[in-house]
Every structure is written in C-alpha cells, then in structure tokens.
C-alpha cells in the first residue's frame, strides 16, 4: 500500500501533466485571439478604418446660391430672397408645449398645425431643430425676435427662396424652379446637390435651359458626428461655386409692357426681336401664371386649374403655339416668285373675288374682288386671288424652299425648352408623311398661309427680321451672356436673295401700314421717324361650307370663341432703318388688321420710345391706342378683316 506521501506525489504528477495540457490549451486560445486581432487590425484594417470614418464623418453639402437672371440692362428678373423659418430645438426648450403656447400668442398657429409640430418634436432627436413655421412675414420675424429671450430653444433661420419680381409677365421666358423628380435625379449625372432635401432646379424656360450654369457647384462640409448624429465639430469646409449670372437679351420694361398689352385679349402671344442681332427683347404668352407660386410649392388646386384652362396658361404660345400664318406668308410667296423669275413686280392679275382652278373655286377674302392688281397693291390689300395665280406659277416646292430659308418649318433653336417646329409643306413632304400626291389646289391654299402651313409666333418674327435686315439669317436667342462662359452671337451670314427683290417686298409691306387702303393703315404709327411697316394676317380655324357661303359668312363675333379666326400681324420699325420686328398672334381674336395690328403698333412704338431715352412709358391701357395713332381712326375705321379664305 502506498504511503500518503506517495499517493500525493502520484496525484501531483498527474496534476502537473494535466496542468501542462491545460496551459497549452490556454496558450492556443490566446494565440487564436492574437491571430484574430491581426486579422481585424492589419489584414482588414483599411476596410474597418474606412467604416470608422464613415461612421464618424458626415458629409454635408453646402448648396451654392442660385445664379441671378437679369435683363439686358442688368435688372434682376429672377433672384433669391430670404425666407424666414421659425425652428424649435426641443432639448433647449424645456417644455415645448408651453413654448408653443407663447409662440401662438405672437403668430397665428391653428390647432392642427400645433399638433403637427408636437408630433414632429416627439419624432425627432432632442437636438434637431423642428420647423415650426415657414415663410414668416417681416412683422412676424420682428415679433419673435423681440421675445426671443423668453423663448428658449426657438430660433429664426434664414433660407433662400427663388423670387420673380416680374411675376407672370416673364413666367414663360424665365420658367420656374421646383423640387427634383426621379427622372431628373437619374439624368443628373450624379450631382449630389440634386439629392439635397429641398433643393430646387429649373423646370422650365431659362431656369431650365441654363440650369447647370445657374445651379453652381456644391461646396461641402465635413462634420464629425457621434453615434446619435449630433454634430461635434466641423472638420473642413470647402465653399462651392455660386451659380453664374445669366444676362438675357430681354428688356424687362418692354417685356412687362407687352405682357400688359396682351392682357387686354383673352389669349395671345407676341415676340419682339432685334432684327440685326437676333436678340429677343420681349417674348410673351398670355394668359400666364405666377412663377413665384411654383418656387414656394404650388397647391394642387391651382395646378389643376392651370392645366384645365382652355387658354393654356402654362404653354408658351410664342414658341409652342403653331398657327396657320395666313397672309403674313405672302411676302415669302412674292419673294419666291420674284427670285424664281416666274413673275416680275409689274405682273398683274385681275381679282373678281375668286379664282378658278379645275372645277374648284378659290375665294378671295373680299367678296366683290380687288380688280386689277400688281404685286405691290396685292400685298397692300392682301389680295388672295393675286397670290393664288402667282403660287400656281411658282409652285409649292419653291415657296417651301424660300420659307425654310427664312426660318419657317424648323425649330429656330432658341434657347428655351419646348419649342415646336411648325410645318412647311411641299410635294416630297406630302408623299413622305401622307403617302399621297400633291394637288395643285393645295399650292393655292399654302400661298395664303393656310392648309398644312404652320408657324410659331417666334418663327414669324424671325421671318420678318430676315426680310427687313437685308436678308441676313439671324437666329433668335434670349441669352446675352452667361458670365465668362458665353457671349451672344450678333453677326449673321447673308441668305442670298437679290437685294432689289427684298427691297420691293419691303416697300409693299410699307404700303400695308402707310398707304391709304393698306390693311393696317388704321393702325399705323404717326410719330415722325418711328413709323412701322408690316403685314396683317387672319388665319381661319374652321371650314366655311358652301351652304354658309350661300347664306352669308358668319361674322367672327357671332361664332363661339374656339371657332373664331386667329388675328396675326408681323411688323417692324422704324420703317427706314428697321431695328425692331414684332409678331403678334391673338388666338381667335378676329381680323389681323383690326385686332393684332394695333397691338403690334403699340409694342413697336413703346420699343422706340424706350430706346429714345429710356423715358416715360406709355400706359398699356385702351386709352393708349388713340394717343399712339390719333389720326388713324376716321379713314379706315371699319377696315375689313383681310381673311385668307379657302374652300376645298
């Protein structure tokens, strides 16, 4: 039997052996820990360092101020206004309910609003500011400021909101800004600004066309934040590039005047252009809308009412409205014929009031006919029969070719979104799109700017400018400069028409306004040296049936608005050295000479008055018309509408 000592010794040897095993296991375990440390800290160290930085650093964008849009004289047309916002930080407010009651004594706060605020406070973190009220008036700001010592946690923050001082007068030119939508986000090429809550981008007009330049580039701010998002300190700050200033060719005073003048009609548009540079001085579409409401966030009721209005306030009719140009197209017909050599200026046609082609009868707007006409008189009286004959001789293809040289039938590429191309029909076009041969009768209808012909008011202004500037292919544009990025182009190549022919056409346009019996003689400018030339147009939007012609064509006034003729006028001034041109279309307004010509006259007069000293501007009221043309009224007060009429 073993002694107690031996037994203990055996027990101790076993224990020692097993202790070594245990120690070995522990050493292995600790080695595993070290290996894991090595893996985490060295092998994966970079990844975790990045994750830690992601945790720690919150990158905030500093939205740059949006660039201003100014007119040609530097008058701001779109700018950024301060917007005062009342915020509450609940952790500093003590009892938010109490504070809200105090605020409610200073500014109106309906009960639902109050509940909304309390809900927001509960939802957000204690240090995060909650918006109590936006768009404070100056009085409200003052009232809060005075009481700030008694309102812990309350502060007034200044934001920026886009403001359009000319309101609806320049809405279609400037467009408006609005929140970024999904598609714009996708198209945004990853500009982080677009993802900023509350960021606004240009949605239409110049705001959209020059959005990138106006937007500027984002600055950024690196903030150190803790686990609950509280900002600990600013690590770095890089200022962005503020949006660039866009200078327009628009004259804001003229723009304002034109819009007011159009405001006397139900639905109209007008374009005023510098005939030499192509710079647009005014571009208006009436009715309009207030872009300021878009910048603030438009209500859905207002939006719906704008969408449903049959006069389409949201559409820029000056570039997107396509109308039959009516008799304003006759200059192109005449010029095409002269250039082609098929007729001379002295070519005469007898107008019995209608023109026979095959077994069709084409009517002149003047029921009894004009008698024997040369081209000068045909233009002055807008005789349809004369141009029926001329067009038959020159053919549709040569007319169309001339129309295109003068800017019709294609987009002018003006720097605005949403422009439409209009339409100049010819034989290949009809074969291509309608798969049908051209009928000779259709040529006649095109010659009076009806049928398939479509043009925008802008295209008509461009056509006029090219006619009166000595035949140079000016292109219309709104942008005069974008800071250091862009300067407008003012030199244009010659179209290449015979100067004598052009001068002849000009003289006949002169006669329309300045000679007794001209279709716009009643609306002429009588100020010496400021006279205008031009051409009236009345485009028919309905078909006049044989039955109606037999019983007497109904007067415009008797028709529903939608079926009345469009009134058109293209004009230029001053007559001896043309500088400005204008095109006016009054939708369903009636006769061009009676309705559109006075508007054009007022605009061209205003144009020149503004230039002559930037002096007092005539008020655009009905009273202005007699003042502008005091002697005009008696002679041709009841000048009939020079309608291009066509029966097929």
């Amino acid at each position, binding site marked *: 039997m073993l002694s*107690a000592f031996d*037994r*203990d010794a*055996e*027990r*101790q040897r*076993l*224990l*020692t052996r*097993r*202790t070594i095993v*245990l*120690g070995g296991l*522990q050493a292995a*375990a*600790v080695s*595993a*820990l*070290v290996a*894991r*440390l*090595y893996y*985490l*800290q*060295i092998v*994966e*160290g970079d*990844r*975790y*360092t990045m*994750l*830690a*930085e992601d*945790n*720690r650093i919150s990158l905030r964008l500093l939205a740059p101020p949006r660039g201003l849009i100014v007119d040609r004289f530097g008058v701001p047309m779109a700018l950024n206004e301060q917007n005062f916002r009342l915020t509450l930080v609940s952790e500093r407010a003590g009892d938010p309910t109490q504070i809200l009651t105090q605020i409610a004594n200073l500014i109106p706060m309906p009960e639902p609003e109050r509940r909304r605020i309390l809900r927001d406070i509960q939802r957000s973190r204690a240090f995060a500011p909650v918006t109590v009220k936006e768009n404070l008036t100056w009085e409200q700001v003052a009232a809060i400021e005075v009481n700030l010592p008694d309102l812990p946690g309350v502060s007034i923050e200044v934001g920026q909101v886009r403001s359009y001082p000319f309101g609806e007068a320049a809405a279609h030119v400037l467009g408006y800004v609005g929140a970024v939508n999904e598609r714009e986000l996708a198209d945004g090429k990853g500009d982080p600004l677009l993802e900023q809550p509350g960021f606004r981008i240009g949605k239409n007009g110049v705001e959209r066309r020059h959005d990138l330049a106006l937007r500027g580039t984002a600055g950024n701010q690196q903030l*150190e*934040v*803790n*686990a*609950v998002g509280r900002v*600990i300190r600013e690590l770095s700050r890089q200022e962005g590039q503020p949006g660039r200033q866009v200078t327009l060719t628009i004259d804001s005073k003229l723009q304002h005047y034109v819009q007011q003048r159009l405001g006397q009609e139900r639905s109209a548009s007008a374009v005023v252009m510098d005939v030499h540079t192509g710079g647009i001085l005014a571009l208006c579409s009436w009715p309009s809308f207030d872009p300021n409401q878009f910048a603030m966030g438009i209500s859905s009721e207002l939006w719906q009412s704008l969408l449903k209005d049959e006069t389409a306030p949201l559409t820029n009719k000056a570039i997107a409205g396509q109308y039959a140009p009516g008799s304003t197209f006759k200059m192109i017909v005449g010029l095409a014929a002269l250039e082609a050599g098929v007729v001379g200026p002295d070519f005469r046609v007898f107008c019995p009031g209608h023109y026979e082609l095959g077994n069709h009868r084409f009517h002149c707007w003047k029921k009894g006919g004009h008698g024997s006409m040369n081209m000068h008189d045909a233009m002055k009286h807008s005789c349809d029969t004369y141009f029926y004959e001329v067009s038959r001789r020159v053919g549709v293809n040569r007319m169309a070719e001339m129309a295109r040289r003068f800017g019709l039938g294609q987009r002018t590429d003006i720097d605005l979104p949403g422009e439409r191309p209009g339409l100049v029909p010819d034989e290949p076009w009809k074969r291509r799109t309608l798969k049908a041969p051209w009928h000779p009768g259709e040529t006649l209808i095109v010659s009076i700017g009806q049928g398939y012909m479509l043009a925008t008011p802008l295209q008509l202004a461009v056509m006029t400018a090219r006619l009166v500037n000595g035949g140079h292919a000016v292109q219309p544009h709104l942008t005069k400069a974008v800071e250091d990025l862009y300067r407008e182009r003012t030199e244009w190549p010659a179209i290449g028409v015979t100067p004598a022919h052009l001068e002849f056409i000009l003289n006949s346009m002169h006669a329309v306004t300045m000679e007794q019996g001209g279709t716009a003689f009643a609306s002429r400018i009588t100020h010496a040296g400021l006279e205008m030339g031009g051409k009236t147009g009345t485009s028919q939007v309905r078909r006049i049936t044989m039955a109606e012609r037999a019983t007497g064509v109904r007067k415009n006034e008797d028709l529903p608005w939608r079926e009345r003729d469009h009134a058109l006028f293209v004009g230029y001034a001053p007559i001896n050295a043309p500088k400005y041109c204008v095109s006016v279309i009054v939708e369903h307004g009636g006769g061009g000479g009676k309705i559109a010509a006075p508007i054009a006259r007022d605009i061209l007069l205003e144009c020149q008055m503004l230039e002559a000293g930037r002096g007092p501007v005539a008020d655009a009221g009905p009273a202005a018309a007699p003042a502008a043309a005091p002697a005009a009224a008696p002679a041709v007060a009841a000048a009939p509408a020079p309608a291009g009429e066509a029966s097929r």
Partner: protein
Amino acid sequence: MIWDTGDDHMTIGEKLGQISWSLVLLITIVASVGFAMLYSAANGNLDPWASRQMVRFGAGLGLMMVCALIDIRIWMRFAYILYGLTLLLLLGVEFFGFVGMGAQRWIDLGFMQLQPSEVMKVCLVLALARYFHGATLEDTGRIPHLVIPLLLVLAPVALVLMQPNLGTALTLLFVSGALFFLSGVRLWKFGLVIGSGLAAIPVVWQFLHDYQRNRVLTFLDPENDPLGTGYHIMQSKIALGSGGLFGKGFLQGTQSHLNFLPEKQTDFIFTMLAEEFGLVGAVAFLSLYCLLLLYGFVIALRCKHQFGRLVGLGLTVNLFLYLFINVAMNMGLIPVVGIPLPLLSYGGTATLTVMIGFGILLSVHVHRDVRMSRRGISDF
C-alpha cells in the same frame, strides 16, 4: 480553537515577507491600464469611472492582502461554509434581486451591489478543491465519488441559468470541468458528458430566452441586422479593426468617443484599448495578462498540497476564462455575453471578486509549504 493552524503557523511579518510582491505590482500595473482606459472612456475625465474604480481597486487591494494573510487551512476549513452562504445569496437574488441589464443578478447590500454569481466563481473553486483534496486518485476514478462534486457544480449553475446569465453559468461549468480534469477524472468521462451536452443543445435552445437566442443568431451573422442586435458586434469590430497597428492614440478613439462603441467602459473596454493603441498595444496588454496567468500556474505547481494546487489552478482558469470570453466577444468570435474583463472593466463585484481570488492565490503562495491533512488540518 478554530484559528489554530497547528505548530507550523507563521507570524504576520513572515507572511508579508513571503508574499509575491512582483505579482502585486503586476496586478497594479494591469489595473492602472484599466484606470487609463476609463479615463479615456470618459473623454479625458477621472469622473465618473476612473476615480471610483481607483477607490474600488484600493479597497480590493486591501481585501486581497487580508485574504493573502489568512491561512490556507482556514480557507479550506471554511470552503463549504462560504460555498453554502453564496448559494443562499444566489437563491436570494431569485427573490430579492434587482433587475439590472435585463437579468436578475444583483443584490443590494447597502454599501454596494453584489453579484453572487461572481462570488460563486471563487467559492465553487474552494469547495471543489476541498472535495478533491480529500479524494484519492482511486476515489476520483469511481463514479459515486463524483456525485457530490457534480451536485456542488450543478446547484449554482442551475441558479445562475435561471437569472438568466448564460455566460457566468458556462464559466462555472468550465472552471469546474478544469478542476475535475486536474483532479484526475478520466478523459472518457468528459467525452461522455460533452457528448451528451451537445446532444442536449436542441433541448436547451427551447429554454433559452429570446434575447439569448438573438445574440447567438446575430453572432452567427452580425451584418444581417446592423441596426438591431448586430450593432454591438459590428461597431466593436469596426473599432478594433480601425485601430490598425499602432492605434489612433490615447483619447483619440473615434468609435469609442463618439459613442459608436457600446458599453465601452465595461464589457467592450478591450475594444477601446485596441482602437486607441492598436495591435501593438492590444498584444502588449494580452501579454501582461498572460504573465498574470503564468504567475497563477507557477504558484499552484509550487504548492506542496493538493488543495492549494487546485485552488491556484482553479482561480487561474477562472481568470483565463474572463479574459478569453470577454476578448473573444469583443472580437466577434463568440456571441455577446455579459462578461467583464477583470481589472480593466468598470464594475464593483468583478473587481472585488477577482481581488479576493488574487488574495487567495497569494495565500496559496504564502502557505505553500504548510502541512495539511485530508480534512485541512496539519495532522501528518
């Protein structure tokens, strides 16, 4: 006379001379690392953690000295009584305990809150050491002789599981297992127990609380639930990994100072250390801790009596388990269980029980040569 330890008793002076002062110094160094980390955890303030932890450590140091001077035979004599009292305390938390961290673990003693389960780690070691001290190798080879120690183990484990505190229960099982192993229980018996234990996992799974199941599930795939329970593990790994080789510097740990790291002053303090001092600092710290463990092994093996050896090794294994479970949890190697890192983590009970443990370990060292009978009396 109960205090009479026989004719080989030592004077206080002799005992003080025998104390391993280098071990005391090593403990103080490790604890000082802890103070520095708590100072950093409070963003460079002594309050609220570092200063209080210093006071506790001071008290713990005193307690350790007292424990070191108490004769190892006294410890042996009172082993069962201490075990019994602690078991009663464990029962107490079931009925009078306070709910902390989602589990009933603490009992309020007035001057401090006590976690009986922590104390039990020491007392179980004492009780099992006493039992096996009195058992010969032949005894440990017989299964009926293992019933009593098994009951000694299972009673507190069951109570701790009921709290519920899975981490501590497992620690108790591991420490006991080590003592069974060191006492000479055959390996095949361990195999049997471990095998049946594994087989019981599906059954145990049924009894686990939802939060415990979630911890296990999140551990298996932390990225799956980055905002929920996986958050702790993710953030801890990010903090550790971003420390790199040399760390971000003292007081510079972004993850800890910006509160991305949860529980940085208690369970995740090692992560904070590794973030601020990198792989170099973390390995240096682990080396210091391993040195502590080495002291434990050496003291135990140099002891002339089985009780002292088993107590020394039991306490060392216990310390190792704290270290391993805590650090492995910080690294995302095992599920998050609420186990602190002694001497580093902020917390009263863990500090005090570990200091008591070191005190008893020192007592083993001081009294390594005393003669001891099978019942703890110097009768041979």
